[in-house]
């Protein structure tokens, strides 16, 4: 199949207009050694049945949460996904729609986004949530830029309890505006508040913490909010909304901006994306909030309708003075989350939190009965915890893969200080049998 839709005659005509002899002539500025000098070495075309067989064989090489028992977390979680989600999002009206660019003609899409925003605002305990951003990391990066814009200050004070990958994304985002980052160390699993106090100054735009943090531990959000506000900084809390059916919403503890990864709410883990960036803020910050925002209003006949509101903040209208250059959202993932929360309801979401934390604590109890295996931190945890192992976590992981167990995320790659640690997440999906089998396999692997 040819992918270039114009004919050689048309190409010649176009080249003639711009005075070029050949397409190659247009590429002369690219060094020859950087250009491919031979045709791509592609296998011959396959018939559909052969292709499906081929792709299935390749897919079979993956270790996924469908055919393994998954204790992986660190930002992406194996929560149960109710079947109706996939059926509902597959409707053409939803599935083919992009973030609305002719918004008022897409009342259904706007309505679904409005419901999503309402749910996220309620879960996070904030006044207003946007239509979503790419993922938790980009939500956090946008939140730090927003805190800088609101306060006019240029230092970000970020706890080491925040997901290291998110911190890397923040570093990339703030390189342009040249913001400074101060890292606050942990003291036994949670942010060291004395170090936090010392890190703050009149230049601090924000304090960023994660709740529960990357290592699974529960931060004292209220206490940290007071410390941040005394210094005139905004408190940004990274939180996974699925936990907030049970945990006190950060908004009720003094957070000014709440961001997080919403993947747990019905979005498949999918090798790390597409994800769902949740972004919520206090009312007085709404005009500085990045991203799209759907509002409910009435039309000339007094009937309820939905519009994209406060668009004057956005890049396509305000250009260089926009609050952010994000002009899109992850509409389909936001819809998955909306359907998920609708199906589970208030009690269901609470139950997911209760089961996850109860099972995580059962797992921690069983796993730490194994000689040499212990909890790395004493701080209270939620559905994820950090184990210290007597043998290399990488080798343990390899060994448990043979039993179709995904044991957890090794922490060496994030921080060498935790090279003997394994981050273990337990969702409501895990059964007692699975946890017991994990404990038995781990005992054998470290013996």
């Amino acid at each position, binding site marked *: 199949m040819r992918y270039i839709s114009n004919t050689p005659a048309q190409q010649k005509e176009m080249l003639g207009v711009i005075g070029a002899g050949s397409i190659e002539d247009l590429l002369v500025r690219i060094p020859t050694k950087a250009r491919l000098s031979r045709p791509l070495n592609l296998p011959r075309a396959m018939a559909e049945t052969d292709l499906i067989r081929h792709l299935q064989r390749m897919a079979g090489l993956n270790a996924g949460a469908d055919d393994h028992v998954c204790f992986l977390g660190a930002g992406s979680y194996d929560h149960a996904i109710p079947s109706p989600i996939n059926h509902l999002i597959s409707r053409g009206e939803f599935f083919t729609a992009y973030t609305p660019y002719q918004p008022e003609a897409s009342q259904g899409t706007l309505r679904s986004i409005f419901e999503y925003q309402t749910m996220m605002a309620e879960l996070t305990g904030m006044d207003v949530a946007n239509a979503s951003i790419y993922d938790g990391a980009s939500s956090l990066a946008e939140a730090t830029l927003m805190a800088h814009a609101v306060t006019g200050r240029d230092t970000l004070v970020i706890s080491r309890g925040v997901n290291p990958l998110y911190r890397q994304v923040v570093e990339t985002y703030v390189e342009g505006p040249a913001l400074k980052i101060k890292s606050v160390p942990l003291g036994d699993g949670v942010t060291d508040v004395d170090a936090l106090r010392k890190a703050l100054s009149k230049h601090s735009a924000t304090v960023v913490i994660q709740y529960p943090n990357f290592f699974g531990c529960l931060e004292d959000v209220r206490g940290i909010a007071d410390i941040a506000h005394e210094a005139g900084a905004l408190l940004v809390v990274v939180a996974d909304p699925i936990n907030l059916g049970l945990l006190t919403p950060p908004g009720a503890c003094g957070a000014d901006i709440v961001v997080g990864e919403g993947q747990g709410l019905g979005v498949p883990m999918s090798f790390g994306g597409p994800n769902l960036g949740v972004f919520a803020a206090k009312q007085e910050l709404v*005009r500085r909030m990045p991203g799209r925002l759907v509002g409910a209003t009435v039309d000339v006949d007094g009937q309820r309708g939905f519009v994209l509101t406060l668009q*004057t*903040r956005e890049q396509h*209208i*305000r250009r260089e*003075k926009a609050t952010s250059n994000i002009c899109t959202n992850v509409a389909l993932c936001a819809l998955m989350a909306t359907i998920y929360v609708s199906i589970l309801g208030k009690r269901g979401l609470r139950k997911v939190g209760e089961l996850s934390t109860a099972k995580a604590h059962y797992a921690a109890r069983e796993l730490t009965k194994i000689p040499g295996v212990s909890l790395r931190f004493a701080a209270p945890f939620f559905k994820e915890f950090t184990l210290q192992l007597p043998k290399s976590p990488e080798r343990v992981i390899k060994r448990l893969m043979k039993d179709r167990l995904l044991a957890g995320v090794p922490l060496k790659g994030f921080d060498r200080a935790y090279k003997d640690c394994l981050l273990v997440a337990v969702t409501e999906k895990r059964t007692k049998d699975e946890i017991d089998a994990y404990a038995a396999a781990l005992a054998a692997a470290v013996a």
Partner: protein
Amino acid sequence: MANVPAELKYTREHEWAKVEGDRARIGITAFAQEQLGDVVFVELPKVGAKVTALKTFGVVESVKAVSDLFAPVSGEVVEVNAELPKKPELVNTDPYGQGWMLVIKMTSPKDVDGLMSAADYEKLTAGGGH
């Protein structure tokens, strides 16, 4: 033709200044509010903030656009119109009266000399909107 009171001074960015001793009361002109359309939000500095002549001091947002506000003179903000957050439409209905924005205690009253007269401002805006 927009209303351009003769006793006021003007900037090219469509702010007006009413000089009262070492203080200047400032706002945006009738022409500016007509160009903007319905004003829905005004963001102003707090009392005590310093502003600099011809630098931005705030933002006015209408249904059409968000525009920066430029200070006609340098000095310290001594009064802020507390009505505007609740009633931004005052900028449309009474731009030279209840729609005022700030009172600035001028550091250098000479700044006023650099501003336009009503006649000059009228000439600037005579071509109408864009």
